């Protein structure tokens, strides 16, 4: 193929690309409909971020298109042709000053709103915030609502502990304290909260207010975004935004002690749970309420997913999970713990080797009844 032919082809493609550019832009915008989208804010925090993003995005688009067209034009227009002589110049002072000023201007336009949002998001959280401690662990999230548990015998407020599903109230500010138990994790709900890392030994936090119109059935998706080991991909969580009535209904149920199982199988499961699972898990209001190590399972039946947002919450998934969790979440093999003998077991065992399939079925039945 000759060079001229190649150039003709590239010119033709250049024209096609020009037509395709708006199409690409359209595709980018359709990212809005994706469940974990970063550009459809549903809280004051993400909207502030979006404000900066849009400025930065359009400026970038402008520079991108300008430079691409310029490159293409120069390449095509100044290609070798009979009779063309290259102009022997070494520079041009005024031009060079001009294209020093252009990037300076663009940078300044981006910096001003950036600094504004930094100032806003590192200020102090609203005083009437609901305070939640989110703790990242390999590989799940624990959420502790400060003071929202049932008062203890002396009437002092207690904290309400739950896992992997966060329930919020639209219009109510929430102040999230970020902690980590083992390695660094990161807390991110793309539509509600830009990510902030959970660093062991550090006390990070963030705050946001879900919009009044952000109430919806469907969950907002959250995910750990700092690499945290074998099952980093399997560390997700869900966020439900309710109106005031819905939130109170959820809170009323969540703070109460566990319900008694009704089915025969469930009752058997409850007995087995105390023997087999209470070492790590708590179900409030039962004998299994001392451990604070694994996720709190008091109302696990009311959650939509298990295993940190990776499986639907149903009996068959629960059975699979209890039987051999490492099959579902690589890395949670308790053998990985032998390095550190001083700490309690971090990871769940595979119970298929220890108890019968019927018993696992019973425990799973019990868990689904813990609404």
């Amino acid at each position: 193929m000759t060079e001229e032919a190649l150039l003709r082809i590239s010119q033709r493609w250049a024209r096609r690309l020009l037509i395709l550019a708006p199409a690409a832009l359209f595709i980018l915008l359709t990212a809005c409909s994706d469940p974990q989208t970063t550009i459809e804010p549903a809280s004051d925090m993400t909207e502030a971020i979006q404000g900066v993003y849009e400025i930065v995005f359009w400026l970038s688009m402008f520079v991108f298109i300008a430079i691409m067209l310029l490159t293409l034009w120069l390449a095509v227009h100044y290609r070798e042709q009979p009779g063309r002589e290259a102009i022997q110049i070494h520079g041009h002072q005024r031009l060079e000053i001009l294209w020093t000023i252009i990037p300076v201007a663009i940078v300044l336009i981006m910096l001003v709103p950036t600094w504004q949002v930094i100032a806003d998001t590192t200020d102090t959280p609203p005083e009437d915030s609901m305070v939640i401690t989110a703790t990242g662990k390999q590989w799940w999230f624990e959420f502790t609502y400060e003071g929202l548990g049932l008062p203890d015998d002396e009437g002092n407020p207690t904290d309400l502990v739950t896992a992997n599903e966060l329930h919020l109230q639209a219009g109510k500010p929430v102040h999230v304290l970020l902690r980590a138990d083992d390695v660094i994790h990161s807390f991110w709900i793309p539509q509600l909260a830009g990510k902030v890392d959970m660093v062991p030994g550090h006390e990070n936090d963030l705050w946001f207010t879900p919009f009044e119109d952000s109430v919806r059935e469907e969950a907002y998706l959250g995910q750990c975004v700092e690499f945290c080991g074998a099952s980093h991909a399997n560390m997700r969580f869900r966020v439900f935004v309710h109106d005031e009535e819905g939130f109170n209904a959820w809170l009323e149920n969540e703070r109460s002690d566990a319900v008694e199982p009704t089915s025969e199988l469930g009752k058997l499961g409850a007995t087995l749970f105390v023997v087999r699972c209470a070492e790590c898990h708590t179900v409030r209001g039962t004998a299994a309420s001392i451990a604070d190590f694994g996720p709190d399972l008091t109302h696990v039946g009311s959650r939509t997913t298990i295993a940190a947002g990776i499986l639907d919450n149903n009996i068959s998934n629960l059975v699979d999970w209890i039987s051999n969790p490492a099959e579902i979440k690589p890395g949670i093999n308790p053998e990985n713990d032998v390095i550190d003998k001083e700490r309690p077991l971090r990871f769940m065992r595979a119970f298929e080797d220890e108890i019968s399939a019927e018993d696992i079925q019973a425990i799973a039945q019990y868990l689904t009844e813990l609404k």
Partner: protein
Amino acid sequence: MATAAGTIAAPTTESVVWSWITTVDHKRIGALYGVTAFIFFLIGGIEALLIRTQLAVPNGNVINAELFNQLFTMHALTMIFLAIMPLGAAFFNYMVPLMIGARDVAFPRLNALSYWIFLFGGLVLVSSFIFGGAPDTGWFAYQPISSSQFSGSGMDFYVIGLMILGISSLAAALNFAVTIINLRAPGMTMMRLPVFIWMTFIVMFLLILALPVLTVALIQMLFDRQFTTSFFLPEGGGDPILWQHLFWVFGHPEVYILILPAMGVVSEVLPTFSRKPLFGYAAIVFAGIAIGFLGWAVWSHHMFTTGLGAVQQAVFSASTMAIGIPTGIKVFNWLATMWGGSIRFTTAMYFAVAFVALFTIGGISGVMHASPPVDQQQQDTYFIVAHIHYVLVGGALFGVFSGLYYWWPKMTGRLLNETLGKWNFWLMFIGMNLAFFPMHFLGVSGMPRRIYTYDSGLGWDFWNLVATVGAFILALGVLFFIINVFKTWQQEPDAGDNPWDAPTLEWATTSPPPEHDFDVIPEVHSREPVWYMRDHNLTTPEPEPGTHIHLPPPSYYPIIIAFGVLLLGLGPLSHLALTALGVPVIIYGIWGWTLEPTE
């Protein structure tokens, strides 16, 4: 000449293998760097293809989570430390003495030592796959996940491998910094240096100043893992964020260490094929220096989400965006170099023009997440993956390929085939854009990086498949380069001294250059010495009859010392007896080295 007691006589044998092992010729060492790095580059590419295969469809099960984590870690380590850095080293080894008009580097044996230590360090790193698993916590090895409590022996290979590679890079950097300062031909003032030499010079100082910081971080990590300290472990009172600061103080200059040589190559290729001098030489040089300085003031932008305070966020966002200014100046000057030219579109020029475009895309997306609020949505998503690959593939790698096509005739005397070259280019160009442009969309759709699996229904399926197809097309493009090399290798070396009518000094000698580079060290009168000679009808002066050109003799000691360093490093990985063995080997090597006659 008599040999000192106990030392080995300088090699005299004609055996091909031994002549390469004992060589101190910068051109041969450059070739060794190039071939070795290219093999590592293929390994890193295979790692990338495995990663993309796993991610082609949701819930993929081609490889498991543990292997995936090793692969993405090793892909980064291999490409950064074993492919792109040493490919840059291959060019500056081969080209620096030729372009500044010197017979060799300032310290030829030290140069050989750098190469052998690099080879051994690379082998240590890659061998971890066989010995109990490769590093698997990312090339950034954040703490405490990289502590002995949370990770296996792979991270020991990481620490030792990077330390060995650090020694190699430091030795090379010192050597070339001195060479560029001290061995320039008469008339080759600093402001007449080719831009490639300038960029190399800046990279040398970045290495000299950044590597010790990494070394300290690695030493502290080694103490945390092997001994009982807790520099980075929160349980013992340490601070995981300290690691991040130390790592990125090294890690951000490292980014410029990777990209500046490519910028240098492009600054040679664009003027040659536009048939006019580089536009705004001084501006490009000073922009490079500015990038070198600013590169030290931006490291915390890798840490915007770790809970930095408002002031730090504000300062580091400003300094990071400020880097866009000298970078912008460079891009405009490159484009202005094409303006008014009569552009010959060889494969080298295709890669160079593509470099300008693709690197600009990577630069623009980089400025986007220089804004901390925006970074809160983009950090650790595929948007960042897209960004770094536009900079390192579209930037650094396309620069390397441009350099390969440009200097191949100088290095081998043979021109690479242009038709295969165009196939090579277009496949790589299309593949690279198909693989990495959709990653912007994935990032905006909220796909985190470093995940080995994802669910369908998140809007990520289509673009992941496209990215995987793109990765394979990119690999096919690289295959065309290999075919091109093998095909043209059988031809007669008939490229001529200066097939491109290029302006810089390396084209003033034969292709390939003689062992002593220049018969007579040329006198330099302009920034484009070869064009100056052409325009003033000057010819290369003949050597005076009877002049003897002294060349350093080959030596066994570089590889002996490098082997000692290898033993030293293998100790902590296996048995400390090896370290004990390494010490006398190194001392013996230094002893022989010092006493060896070099006249």
